[in-house]
């Protein structure tokens, strides 16, 4: 059976503690992507440091989903490079994907299967055997408060529960970088707050790096790293105060409008 390609540069040791701080959880350099003549991403560069929360802010159509598709290798990288903990997604996809957890924007659970069956399937896709998978599934279900629902069909869960389950599933193989593509869309206010709190705890308590795509300004906190994506280009990046200072605006909403030159009416939750 074919072994996965080794990345050409030095591998960081997988133990979090021993890792040199300079290896980014996610490093995107000079990435461009077009569909035929339509340019979806134009020379994007930014990085997500390990154990930090980075918000990718952009309106619908800014290129967020294209970027996610590139990071998860659904599309090939046309220009530039994407590295996850130093592993190039094109050259060492296996090593890159095994430390990556993803929650896609569309729901990707099997509605007719039970909560546990969904988790076991995902674990199998990562080569995690049945016994180990059950132990881990119990752990992640306890974390999201769904332990008593493990035999329920996913169809019977609420929207918020499904989203929490998707996050739990993405964590089963213990990734060190978690991508979430507008995970709060379609959730009510409480479910949104719960999910956001859960994701932030993953960052602070488990040291997981998070890239959180959103078009909702109120999901961004003071200490977050922020990348503003608009029409396929990065308009600004840095901490919120930095971006406010850069654009000379009082709040993020105004800053966004000034940066993009649009009425950001799509930003209302």
């Amino acid at each position, binding site marked *: *059976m*074919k*072994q*996965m390609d*080794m990345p050409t540069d030095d*591998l960081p*040791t*997988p*133990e979090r503690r021993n890792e040199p701080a300079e290896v980014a959880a996610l490093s995107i350099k000079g990435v461009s992507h077009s*569909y*035929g003549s*339509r340019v*979806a991403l134009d020379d994007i560069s930014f990085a997500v440091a390990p154990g930090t929360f980075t918000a990718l802010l952009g309106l*619908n*159509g*800014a*290129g*967020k*989903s*294209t970027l996610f*598709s590139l990071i*998860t*290798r*659904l*599309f*090939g*990288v*046309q220009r530039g490079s994407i590295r996850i903990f130093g592993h190039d997604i094109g050259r060492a*996809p*296996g*090593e890159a*994907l*095994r430390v*990556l957890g*993803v929650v*896609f*924007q*569309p*729901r*990707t659970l*099997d509605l*007719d*299967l039970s909560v546990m*069956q969904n988790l*076991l*399937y*995902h*674990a*199998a*896709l*990562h*080569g*995690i*055997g*049945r016994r*180990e998978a059950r*132990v881990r599934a119990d*752990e992640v279900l306890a974390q999201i408060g769904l332990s008593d629902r493990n035999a329920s069909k996913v169809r019977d869960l609420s929207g918020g529960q499904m989203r929490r389950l998707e996050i739990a599933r993405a964590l089963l*193989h*213990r990734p060190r970088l978690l991508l979430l593509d507008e995970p709060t869309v379609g959730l009510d206010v409480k479910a949104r707050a719960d999910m956001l709190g859960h994701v932030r705890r993953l960052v602070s308590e488990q040291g997981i790096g998070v890239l959180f795509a959103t078009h909702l300004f109120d999901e961004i906190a003071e200490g977050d790293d922020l990348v503003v994506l608009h029409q396929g280009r990065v308009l600004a990046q840095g901490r919120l105060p930095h971006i406010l200072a850069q654009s000379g605006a009082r709040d993020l909403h105004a800053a966004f409008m000034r940066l993009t030159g649009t009425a950001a009416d799509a930003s209302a939750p």
Partner: protein
Amino acid sequence: MTTDAIKPRPGFSLTQYAVCMNGIVWREGLRFLHQRERFISALVRPLVWLFIFAAGFRQVLGISIIPPYETYILYEVYITPGLMAMIQLFNGMQSSLSMVYDREMGNMRTLLVSPLPRWYLLFCKLLAGTAVSVLQVYAFLLVAWFWDIEPPHIGYLTVLPALLLSGLMLGALGMLISSGIRQLENFAGVMNFVIFPMFFASSALYPLWRVQEGSPVLAYLCQLNPFTHAVELIRFALYGRVNWVSLAVVGGCAVVFMIAAAVAYDPSRGIGRHGPAGGET
């Protein structure tokens, strides 16, 4: 606290490959159990052909003794292998349909972000679909048995490898087609341009020597049709014999279709060209 099952060293062990295959086949089986309508329609379709079409045509078409048959046979007996292959053809196309349908890449995404090599994931998926089609075929054979379609007992066993191979070929073809279909509506096109021509321009419903009498060109086309060879491979295997030409054609086509499907799902070539599904960017 549990220890990590995935060791941090690069690459994956054979056990992990096996776990992955097991998981994919298991999920396909569960989904199949949950979709009873799919199972019933997969069973009813060939039975309609057997009970109605074959009964009607029995008087019209006389079948002479041709290999692998050693006596005169009823028309029902003749078309049974064709209907078995038809089950697999529909199943292959239906898995391709479900691949398109899975929320326009929804469930496919879960599969494709697995760190195991993509060709291997697709192969497991293919194997899972084939396993389901084989179950459907045996269910059909069981009902057909009550209709006096009684191949030799050993045939039920010897037909298994033939079914696996033809299932892989037709499933790989479906997968290849699915990589090119972006919208569900296009499945009607698949019916018209793939399923019907493949089924009718084959030896499933009439022996090729009969076709030859009517239209030599059509007979030639039938011989080029890989589905004809799937039918003949199954027909011979059901009577404990091997049709070597068909075996070579089906095996060769299976490999070619599988490689083509793997290439089509390669991110740098196939999927990336079409842009994201559902019009999102």
